[in-house]
């Protein structure tokens, strides 16, 4: 997956008005590349059996 520089700039601008130059975008890209690479790996992973963890528990001795 790839996103154009202009789209990236617009999205970052939406984030509290931060403006990035093309040079700065090249510094951000490596992190995005990791994101897309990891997403690709998940494409064929079956997550239907993954259930949420137990969030609440009784104190010791309670019923």
């Amino acid at each position, binding site marked *: 997956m790839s996103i154009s520089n202009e789209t990236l700039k617009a999205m970052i601008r939406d984030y509290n008005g931060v403006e990035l130059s093309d040079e*700065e975008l090249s510094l*951000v890209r490596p992190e995005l590349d990791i994101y897309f690479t990891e997403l690709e790996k998940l494409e064929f992973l079956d997550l239907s059996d993954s259930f949420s963890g137990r969030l609440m528990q009784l104190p010791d001795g309670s019923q």
Partner: protein
Amino acid sequence: MPNVDVLRMTISELSPKIQNKEISPLEATEAALTEAARLQPTLNSFITLMYESAMEQARESEQALVRGEYRGPLHGVPIGLKDNLATAGVTTTVGSKVLANYVPEEDAEVVVRCRNAGAIIIGKENLEEFAAGATSNNPHYGPVHNPWGLDHVPGGSSGGGGANVAAGITFASLGTDLGGSVRLPGTFCGVVGLKQTYGRVSQRGLMVTSFNGDHIGPMTRSVADSALMLQVLAGNDPLDPSTVPVAVPDYSSFIGKGIKGLKMGVPSNHFFDMLDSDVETAVRASIASLEELGADLQDVNLPTMEYIGAMRISAMADGVVTHEEFLKNHRGDYGPDVFYRTIPGQFVLGRDYSKSLKVQRLIQEEYLRVMQQVDFLVTPTAPVPAPRIDATYIDINGENHRVRGAGSGFISRNTSPLNAVGLPAISVPCGTNRAGLPIGVQFISGPFNEGLLFQVADSYEKVSPSQGLCPLVSVGQ
């Protein structure tokens, strides 16, 4: 002249001498503060030295001893705190320019526990900006230098603490570990670094942290000292919902028990896949030593580790949310590494965040299954010894990996999975590379089974080739 011989002891050696009044808390504290000031231009390991309050604490500590009030093994023992742990009335910068003048009103819970146990806090230690990285190459307060090689990083993000414990300035330092930030300074500085089970130690007062997987843990010069520190830190905190109300055992009772008959799992995938050759040699030798000590070796497979990188997706989103307010008003106060690494979190889609959490659950379940087959796992702590401070990339088998900033994460590839699953892990020194830089081996046990972790780590420590080694830069040198 300060009595530097005192500073070369472990807590286990010092505390009986304090209890018997052979060494006074004042003597130990004065020595620690003097050496901290002397070595600060070399190591840059502190952001704030707390000379007056530490000496006042030491005097109170001494008076308590005179009254017969001994508070335990940390009584009168000088320690350091990573500068992202809140300290009442003392600047807590989190290694940032944004919070350069922030003074908390309350101590973090772990700080309260250390003070109540009699520990003397001598300073706030340098770290990666916002604790977000593995080098402690801080753009605002300067890089921390590794006492084993001053041109090398001490690891991060709790690098100041690792350097201080290795150099003998502090007897223990408290760090925080979101992806390896206690265990990496442990391995790079040749000290013991512990990340206990998620929920074992309160995180209340840990500043600017993630929503998922941070831990406060000790760095020490011995496994026995790590057990003493966790004894003080562990326990339910009713004001921190991440802590779990489970009993805290006597950790020191696991020291010296031996490991004969314990089942030792060695992962056949991920952890040994991309290693510096000296690291692999040292860790394979550690495994052989553990077999000689009586552990029963078993290969284990962790197939879901193929997807461990998905944890980065949730971390990116958590990171940008954590920094949202600061980025809004202080963009110019950020260093480039943290800024360009944080901003991309903006792009993480909700569906991908949700997938990342589901993957985390799958990996957790797999580890829990494996921990029913073996008593503990052994892995290298880091794939490489400490990189140079000026390194942008490190080369492993012809592949370049970023050391810091956007796209980095290679250094923490063996530590961060344990943050995702929450299991306890400890790094113990296991020798050095050909250049004399320390290497660490990581032991992992089942949830809330830190006692067994200490049992294994202590047994190994006694036969480790790191025994008796000392860094180039240390107290008295």
